[in-house]
């Protein structure tokens, strides 16, 4: 049963997409909606094809991806480091805990107006924003994963005479790896959202800018097309992080 289900997974996924498209087309037909409100799936597909053929579109994609990757790597590495530190050293947790907890709740979106004031519409502002968003996700998930590590493992490691740094890296970090991996996946989605959000408010290039411009000229088909592209890229990013995490976990 499960084997057959695995084989037809793609077909079932396509069925899900078909159901959504049918509902979409049906809504337009039933309510007689104008294309400014909701364009047909076909016209969105045509718009997408037109976008794929334009160089400006790919330039926007490249800008958004560059901002995301740089911010993700910086925020991810720093976040895991601080998360391990906070998980291993109660004194560190108590000292920087309140500051992190307070800053964590000033969500990335709230920083957008300030990053625009500070960095203008440059690349730096977006990278800072993504790094900020990813950092806090990684600190929290890493710390959470490390606190749920079975204390028996720690006791065994101590009994085996491992040094503290060895316990942190070889026992705790490894035991917490699944949690950190799922955190990294969530952080990829959140980081990608931060890129688009930042571009929506203040940027000179990128997918967010493309959608803003399209919405201002009521080109709803381009808006939905852009949203689909953002979804595809976000899904791919998440999938790649998942692959990397799985490879790391198996290792």
């Amino acid at each position, binding site marked *: 049963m*499960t084997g057959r*289900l695995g084989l*037809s*997974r793609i077909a079932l*996924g396509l069925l*899900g*997409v078909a*159901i959504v498209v049918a509902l979409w087309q049906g809504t337009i037909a039933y309510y007689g909606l104008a294309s*400014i*409100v*909701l364009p047909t799936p076909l016209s969105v597909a045509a718009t997408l094809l037109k976008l794929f053929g334009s160089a400006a579109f790919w330039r926007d994609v490249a800008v958004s991806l560059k901002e995301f990757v740089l911010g993700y790597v910086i925020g991810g590495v720093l976040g895991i480091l601080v998360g391990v530190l906070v998980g291993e050293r109660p*004194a560190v947790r*108590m*000292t920087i*805990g*309140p*500051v992190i*907890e*307070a*800053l*964590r*709740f*000033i*969500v990335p*979106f*709230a920083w957008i*107006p*300030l990053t625009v*004031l*500070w*960095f203008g519409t440059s690349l*730096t502002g977006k990278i800072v924003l993504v790094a900020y968003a990813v950092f806090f996700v990684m600190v929290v998930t890493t710390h959470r994963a490390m606190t*749920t590590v*079975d*204390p028996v493992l720690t006791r065994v490691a101590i009994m085996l005479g491992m040094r503290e740094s060895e316990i942190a890296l070889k026992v705790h970090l490894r035991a917490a790896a699944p949690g950190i991996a*799922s955190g990294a996946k*969530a952080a990829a*989605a*959140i980081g*990608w*959202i931060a890129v*688009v*959000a930042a571009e*929506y*408010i203040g940027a000179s290039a990128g997918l*967010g800018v493309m*959608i*803003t411009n*399209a919405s201002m000229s009521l080109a*709803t088909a381009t*808006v*939905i097309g*852009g*949203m689909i592209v*953002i*979804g*595809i890229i*976000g*899904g791919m990013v*998440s999938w790649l992080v998942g692959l990397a995490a799985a490879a790391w976990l198996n290792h």
Partner: protein
Amino acid sequence: MTTAGDRAPAGRPWVRPWLLGLAGSLGAILFWTAMAFWLKGGGGVISRLPTPLAVGVELATYARGPLWPDLAASLEVFLAGWLIGCTGAAVIGIAMGQSPLIGAIFGPVVEALRPVSSIVWVPLAVVWFGFGFTSKIFLVGLAVFLVVIVYAIDGARRIAPDLHRTASMLGMTPLQRFRALVLPGALTEVLVGARVALMSGWGTVIVAELVAADFGLGAHLIAVQQSYDVAAVMAAMACFGLAGFIMNAMFSLLERRLLPWRSGGATR
């Protein structure tokens, strides 16, 4: 300051967390003040960094004025959207996690929707629901839903096979198994997700208020940003942070009450 806190005597454990937290906070504020004075002459990338005091004064001014109605408006949007998003995600997520068929059909759809920021939905939300309450609730609910659904699916799926085998060996009916195994496991993850979604839902409130910039913390934030008032921008950000922090604290309390086995030792 920080190093003094680090060496606090270990014999007074009830004082240490407070002392260390205070030391860390004071250290951060001192660092901020130093940066503000250092950057005063321009030079750095960040040329407009007000001192904590200036932000504090701005915050006090705001608190005497329109902060409370703004906060109430934002909280109303947030709570409604958050509850709707969590409930929807729990129901759909458990269905998708439990039934491989439903999971396989709608998994790709959810995966495709998930990375699309609620901000990206803003133009569509306006066209569909106008500038009112509905538009905001839609955006916040969507943001929360897309976070929590992952946790709900994971929770419903990640029941240890041993437990399932044991349950069927004990002769539990599928309904009993659902209530005793699946539901607690899935709802635990939903609660964790709901707490993570506090952050993204609360952030989307800004976005939602950007759409209908009449009142609310987000509308205020945009207004002061457009007048280049960095201190007021930071004061508004602090309001967002404080409100989020308080909500998280309340939710932690709730989580501990509802899921005592998660915060206690892993003995059971």
